[in-house]
């Protein structure tokens, strides 16, 4: 895609968001207001700024990333607006903030290249682990930084120093996942030879040396800790899966995939027998309609939404996605399915497919091991997260309550995912011939 075409596509995505808002308003009240214009402006400014920042500080970057991301954000935004206009107003601010942060990351990487990420890998690891553990802070102590439990999961951190009339809330896992991928990519780039050669032949299997399994065990431990203390099935699974996939990518050792899979199952079974909320999740997943009154209610409503949307959808503002609990976050895909139909969900899947193809393409073409692993890892995080949450809505896997990248309501997720895109853009710039 030429730069001109990319810029034009970004404007088109902004127009898509604005048009969606117009249709929703028209369906609800039959009137037009400033919301459409405002939405167009915010999208054009946010993604336009990211586009210009890329042009300036990473001019040889792939031209195929920003546009599909903008399109997904636009589709998600129109459903958020349809479900809760007040939240949509907040989400617009978050979009501007996220674009500014992503632009700043591009500038920082322009100053120091992706090598600085590698150089400060231990600092990044430390910050990420602290971020991950922040929600474990007590929710009732005097310090202005507190953990917060929402819907039985402890994913949130509240900052309330009394300086602002409202408290700031964020989900640190959305940023920590980036830091952990950066660290793991750097660690594996350092140790890949050792890891690759250290194996034992047991019958037909090449098994890794027990010593080399240590990082695997540590990450698994961290994931299990999050699972237990924060009750966050999604983040825990996402972290561990991304790590195992990267380990395999770096070494080609199938034993990592096998042992990683076994460890996931082990943690899953243990969690099932130990925790009510895991049992409820599983019951809701396997038999949503039989558990309609409780554990299966959300999934059932999501499926009703998808079925009612059918091929062409009810139309923006004309369906009832508000009947699905947490429609704007976990179930935004079902909301899209109801109002934009099969056409909309296929388009969404195609856009994710395109982003993943671009991300993996960047990884393939990278000559530098660190950058190759980083690009692959970031793409895996995005792909696994997308699969986990959409698969949860579609009953392929148990529902894990994580956000759908770019589309779900939520500021921290948007910031984290646009930074992820910024790093991918930078790698593609550095690796372009």
């Amino acid at each position, binding site marked *: 895609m030429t730069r001109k075409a990319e810029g034009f596509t970004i404007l088109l995505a902004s127009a898509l968001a604005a048009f969606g808002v117009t249709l929703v308003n028209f*369906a609800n009240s039959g009137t037009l207001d400033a919301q459409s214009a405002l939405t167009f402006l915010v999208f054009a400014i946010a993604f336009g700024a990211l586009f210009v920042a890329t042009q300036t500080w990473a001019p040889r970057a792939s031209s195929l990333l920003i546009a599909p991301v903008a399109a997904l954000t636009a589709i998600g935004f129109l459903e958020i607006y349809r479900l809760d206009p007040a939240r949509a107003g907040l989400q617009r601010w978050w979009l501007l903030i996220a674009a500014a942060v992503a632009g700043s990351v591009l500038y920082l990487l322009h100053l120091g290249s992706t090598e600085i990420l590698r150089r400060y890998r231990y600092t990044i690891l430390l910050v990420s682990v602290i971020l991950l553990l922040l929600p474990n802070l007590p929710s009732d102590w005097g310090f202005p930084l507190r953990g917060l439990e929402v819907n039985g999961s402890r994913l949130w951190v509240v900052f309330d120093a009394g300086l602002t009339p409202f408290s700031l809330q964020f989900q640190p896992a959305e940023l920590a996942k980036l830091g952990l991928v950066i660290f793991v990519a750097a660690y594996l780039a350092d140790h*890949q030879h050792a890891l690759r050669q250290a194996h034992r032949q047991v019958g037909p299997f090449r098994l890794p040396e027990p010593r080399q399994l240590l990082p695997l065990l540590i990450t698994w431990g961290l994931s299990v800790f999050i699972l237990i203390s924060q009750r966050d099935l999604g983040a825990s699974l996402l972290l561990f899966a991304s790590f195992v*996939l990267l380990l*395999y*990518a*770096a*070494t*080609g050792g199938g034993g990592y995939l096998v042992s990683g899979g076994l460890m996931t199952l082990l943690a899953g079974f243990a969690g099932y027998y130990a925790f009510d909320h895991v049992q409820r999740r599983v019951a809701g997943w396997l038999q949503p*309609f039989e558990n*309609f009154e409780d554990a299966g209610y959300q999934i*059932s409503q999501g*499926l*009703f939404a*998808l*079925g*009612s*949307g*059918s*091929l062409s959808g009810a*139309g923006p503002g*004309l*369906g*009832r996605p508000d*009947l699905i609990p947490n429609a704007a976050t976990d179930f935004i895909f079902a909301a899209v*399915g109801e109002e934009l*139909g*099969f056409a909309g*969900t*296929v388009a969404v*899947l195609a856009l*994710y*497919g395109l982003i*993943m193809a671009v991300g*993996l393409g960047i*990884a*393939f073409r990278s000559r530098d*091991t660190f950058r*190759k*692993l980083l690009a*692959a890892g970031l*793409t*895996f995080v995005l*792909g696994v997260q997308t*699969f986990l949450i*959409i*698969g949860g809505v*579609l*009953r*392929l896997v148990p529902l894990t309550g994580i956000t759908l990248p770019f589309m779900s309501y939520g500021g921290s997720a948007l910031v984290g995912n646009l930074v992820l895109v910024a790093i991918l853009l930078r790698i593609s710039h550095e690796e372009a011939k």
Partner: protein
Amino acid sequence: MNGPIRRLALGLFASMAALLIAVTWFQVFRADALKNDPRNARPALSERGKERGLIVTNDGTVLARSDEDPNDALTFVRTYPEGPAFAHVVGYSSFLLGNTGLEQTYSQDLRSRRDITISDLVAVILGRDLRPSSIEVTIDAELQKAAFAALAGRRGAVVALDPNTGAVLASVSSPSFDPEALIGDDADAAWNALLEAEGSPLSDRATRELYAPGSTFKTVVAAAGIDTGFVGPESVFPDPVAFPLPGSEATISNYGGRVCADGETVTLLRAFVVSCNTTFANLAIQLGAADLGITAEALGFNRELEFAWQIPPAQFNIGELEDDPAALGQSGIGERDVRAAPLHMAMIAATIANGGQLYSPYLVSRVFDADGNTVETTEPVPLGRAMAPTTASIMTQMMERVVTEGTGTSASVAGVRVAGKTGTAQGSGEFPHPWFIGFAPVENPTIALAVFLEGGPDLGETATGGGLAAPIASTLIDIWLSGEQ
């Protein structure tokens, strides 16, 4: 390193393909099933505020209509001008609770096809009528209101039929409720209050609840005996104070512990007129479960009958009774496990009235479009001959004697020949249920009906069909016949 990444890429795209397959499954192949799942509130919600057709009686009384909302153009509010007396038949159309009654059965006709989407435009171009159709019911508004008034808030039901077609002239269940309370935003609260309310006003005692028919079931036993040629009105039976049930310590005695005639012998006619329990227990056992069962099933027992909504089949358990003569004796007087809805007992009266033909009961006579043109007319559906015309004629004579000189004298109407049978069913409860089934005028019946009162402390332990149900029948027959002229 590109090798493993390539394999992982394949895995990632396989996962995306799985998502694509799953979403195709739910949005294409399972879409209709999911959309129409009764727990999916969306179809009912989408009906909210839309115009629905009229539900009217043939004299033009409006039972349900949609008025434009004065506060909100383009939206409509459903009103039920005749209120509780018609609530179980008409039902309601509630965006929170769904549709019930005729509002549910005829929802496809009554609903507007207007959608505020592009499909409206297409339909207009194709010349399709998007306006809702209306339905005309067979209910007679005056009779229905009179029946509801006669029940006077007591728990019970009245069903009246046209004996020559099966058209329902009245179907009342009491106590009732105001359907308009269940269609607004506070429908859930109103519904919960009704669930808790005294007398369970939401249940439709006329068509959806089964009760022991008591002595009204003697019509079935007598018809079976006469139809098989086993007995006639003058057949003679012993007249004991108590009839010992074979194979059991229990006995069956008569009302008030009396004999039915002279204490020696009693004729079938006399036994029927005074509702003699010993005779009918005896007759049922002599007939046997199989022969009795043939007539009972010909009269619709144990059969899934078509109606505007699903109705539970009346029960007469032939298989169990074949090996249990004691139970058969008790069944002969409409007790034990015999169960029927008031609608069903009215059908039995109607069958005897018309000479032995069982008709399928129906509530809607026609469907008409927004311009008043008839779209669909209901034709009476005969379900088969239940007894020979001569049997029906003998039964009619016997039932007329019940009203002229027997237990049902308070069902009589001045200047009209009324036939009937009383019942005082013990059922499984502590208090007896008064019943009356009958028809009039005898020479050319135009109404058959069943009156049922549910026993309870309010009616007392001494309530009887002749005392409480028969006078209601008298009132309603009088109103019907004077309205006809």
